């Protein structure tokens, strides 16, 4: 599955699934690599976003985080992928708003207002803005190298690396099982999933469970044969390079987070009560 060119770049078959899904006009790998951020800096930004949007509950603070993260996602210049993702997110948000409106009709003590939904929705949008750059630009090999670069313990690094590496294999297995079922005459459509959910689960899930266990045994044998053990020395395929722009990205993310916290402290108390 892994194809490596003479320059040492992996072919597009082993990029993250999200990238394949949103394949638009992609720059050449070497061009893209030279002008993009290091995976570790993107991981730091994702890590920030798992904490600060939760801590900030004022509209002003969330607006700062959203603006900063939106500029970050626009810097990818993958406008089509961003538009598709935003369309999907808007669809889900509309559905949630309709449910909330329905509850407000049933329970009058909980009035419905669009303003009260703004902060929770902005939290979701910030999350989307930071995940998209990671999903659209990072290769699996880079993720593995970055994971190793974090100096995690052996018992955490190996399962983490296997997890990241196994996801495309597992999706390939799912595709194969689905094709097999279609050849045998099963309809795997949306309606059939609702009419016979247990049968569909059984048909799809059982072969995948067997495949997962077989794959884990094969991978384990390969790991033992290669002498992977605690304290072993790993040589990365290509050493990651931390550039000045990566430091700048992390500092800008930190500055945006601090500004959001300042806005929270400065204007949080004067915001609309339901949005606090």
């Amino acid at each position: 599955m892994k194809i490596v060119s003479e320059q040492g770049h992996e072919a597009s078959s082993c990029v993250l699934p999200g990238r394949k899904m949103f394949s638009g006009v992609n720059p050449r790998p070497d061009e893209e690599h030279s002008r993009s951020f290091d995976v570790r800096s993107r991981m730091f930004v994702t890590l920030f976003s798992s904490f600060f949007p939760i801590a900030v509950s004022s509209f002003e603070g969330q607006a700062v985080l959203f603006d900063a993260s939106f500029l970050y996602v626009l810097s990818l210049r993958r406008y089509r992928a961003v538009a598709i993702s935003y369309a999907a997110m808007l669809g889900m948000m509309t559905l949630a708003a309709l449910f909330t409106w329905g509850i407000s009709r049933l329970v009058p003590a909980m009035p419905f207002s669009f303003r009260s939904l703004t902060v929770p929705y902005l939290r979701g949008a910030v999350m989307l803005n930071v995940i998209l750059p990671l999903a659209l630009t990072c290769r699996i090999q880079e993720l593995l190298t970055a994971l190793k670069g974090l100096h995690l313990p052996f018992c955490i690094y190996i399962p983490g690396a296997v997890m990241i590496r196994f996801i495309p294999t597992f999706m390939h297995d799912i595709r194969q099982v689905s094709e097999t079922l279609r050849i045998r005459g099963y309809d795997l459509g949306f309606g059939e999933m609702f009419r016979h959910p247990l049968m569909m689960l059984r048909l799809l899930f059982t072969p995948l469970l067997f495949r997962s266990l077989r794959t884990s045994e094969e991978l384990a044998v390969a790991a033992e044969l290669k002498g992977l053990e605690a304290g072993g020395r790993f040589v990365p395929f290509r050493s990651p390079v931390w550039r000045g722009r990566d430091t700048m990205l992390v500092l800008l993310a930190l500055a945006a987070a601090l500004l959001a916290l300042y806005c929270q402290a400065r204007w949080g108390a004067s915001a609309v009560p339901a949005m606090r």
Partner: protein
Amino acid sequence: MIRDLFRWSAQDLVVIGVFAAASKVATLLVALAGGGMNPISLIGKNLVFTTLLVVMLCKVRRPGTITLFTTISIIVSMLLLGASITLIPAMMAGALAAEAAMWPCRDSEGVWNCVLGAAVYDIVTKLGSLAVSWLLMRENPAMMLMVVPFVAAGYLGSLGGLFSGVRAVRELRHAGIIRQ
């Protein structure tokens, strides 16, 4: 003796990694195939997750397996998927409670100790996730009311997953993939 209990072989670590990936992708696909967060896809998603958890616990019979599985899932989710840092206490509490529940019968070879661990993990994690949901949606309590039935529906799937996990383990033992 304690040190031997927590010494992991490469095979155990690989199995944990594979199951962490399988649970992540399978639950995501069930949710997408079911057309989003409706009760049926929620039940299916949790059923698949709990079944995988029971099978993994039967395959890797070591104290600390569920904690390591949770740690890996959290690290990868936080670094790559932007999962909320507030999920950590609920998931770790679930994992530690499951370890404590499984500890007295850690040497038993049957499937029931694994089922007990998965059941404790599910209930503690669900309760913790409700607390996290309140934290995330505290600006609009009406949305919280919407979350509770969904989590309850998910828990029904988890209960079903315990039974399907037992059946899957029996089948896998019969096939010689999981050894006593």
